[in-house]
């Protein structure tokens, strides 16, 4: 179980986060915060013609929250808003153990599946995704 949580791929995203940083304006910024443990993820987005053209994150927290944010930036860059929404759905369902069927399309994100055995950590894994969801509300 522990091995499933702390897979090499998660530790790799934690140690070498993709998409870490901030964007120059104009951008959309959204802050996400988990008061029970202090994890913080701030997302910068650029959306053009209904497509996420660039995305970065910064903040601090546990390996799960930061790796999840890193994976998120990789996964949604270049996606349409509709595709991003679908990914948010799938990723959050995955970490709660509620996703049936096709995992193939998720790429690295699949590594988050192990979180389902650790209810205390679900909030860490979903933080970046919920923050993205809030950010997209700013677009719409």
């Amino acid at each position: 179980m522990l091995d499933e949580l702390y897979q090499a791929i998660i530790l790799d995203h934690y140690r070498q986060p993709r998409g870490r940083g901030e964007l120059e304006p104009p951008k959309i910024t959204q802050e996400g915060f988990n008061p029970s443990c202090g994890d913080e993820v701030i997302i910068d987005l650029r959306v053009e013609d209904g497509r996420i053209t660039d995305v970065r994150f910064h903040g601090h927290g546990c390996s799960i929250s930061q790796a999840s944010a890193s994976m998120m930036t990789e996964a949604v860059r270049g996606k349409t808003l509709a595709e991003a929404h679908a990914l948010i759905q799938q990723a959050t369902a995955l970490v709660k153990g509620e996703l049936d069927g096709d995992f193939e399309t998720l790429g690295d994100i699949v590594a988050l599946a192990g979180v389902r055995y650790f209810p205390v950590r679900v909030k860490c894994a979903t933080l970046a995704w919920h923050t993205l969801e809030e950010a997209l509300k700013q677009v719409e």
Partner: protein
Amino acid sequence: MKTARLSVNAGEVRRQFPFFQPHPEMRSVIYLDNAATTQKPYTVIEAVSNFWAHHNATVHRGGHGVGAKASELYEAARTRVAQFLNAREPNEIVFTRGTTEAINLVATAWGEAFVQAGDEIIVTELEHHANLLPWMRLAEKQQATLKVWRITDDGRLNLDDLRELLTERTRLVAVSHISNVLGGVNPVAEICHLAHAAGALCLVDAAQSIAHMRVDVQRIECDFLMFSGHKAYGPTGIGALYAKREHLEAMPPYHVGGGMVQTVRWERVRWAEPPMKFEAGTPPIGEAIGLHAALDFIDSIGREAIESYEHELTQYALRRLQETPGVRLYGPVPDRTGIFAFTLEDIHPHDIATVLDTRDIAVRAGLHCAHPLSERLGGPTVRASLALYNDTDHIDALIEALHHTRQVFGYAG
């Protein structure tokens, strides 16, 4: 009515309560002080014990599985309270020690933020001190005016009197759902409606109604409503405040401390979202879980069944009290519940209670934490108050003991 009567068997209900089981060292008591506090079923005592024995941990702090389980149980209790009151969402429920703390919370956090000099607050003449003193103090502090909605001579609230009192300066009407002395059910939905029409909020003290009738915050349309666990077959140390989400969001916090903040820096504090914002420090976790079990107990009997059973018992008690020589009964006759304040001849209520006590009948005597109302009634009274586990035998024993009391004090048979 008849069918509903069949649905509650008080004798069977008593078997679910350790208090009513024979005990080698204790005399069995006919408990008629339910408006003060109710007895607790085994399921409630066991829910609390079981939590402390096996799941005890503090809540909402990351770390370990025991804590996660404790948090889950605590939040399940909140959801249960929300459902019991028909709140829109669990986040509208704040756990408090009881009714008194909940009203103090509203009077301080909401009151000091939203009541200004010259504003008016309306309270009724039949309030318990818990729903009186916080408003007297708030009015004094904010230089607001406290207006008293007097009762009629037969112990009721007349809506026309409220219409006269309401003005555009009225910020709040605070009223109890059921008076803890007179037992009358107040028309709280109509009161809230009138308050809202005048631009005021409405607070309902449900301490005496919660265990005896359906309390539906969406139907009442109240802004605030609160009750105590210990008067609803639950533990001491726990109660709940319901408040519309918009109010909880607008109000500043009450107690401050751990668990109710997002971040604390020397320069700036960010509060957590409601309801956490109002639950500073370690909450009464075991007690919230006990309250959950108490609400389950109530629903296992059925609120409609309870209401109609208690209604019938109330009618019986009313009849028996009215036919007892020397008894003077207070409060309205229609729309009343099983709370009976009375006097017997000119025997002092404490003397009556003592005679009843020697017959192992527990009632209360005095001013019932409602001095202004008691003064209006002419002084102290005896109060007998019913619950689900009482039955006609208890009323009969009470009446017989009242006859005996008259004899002790030299009144002719």
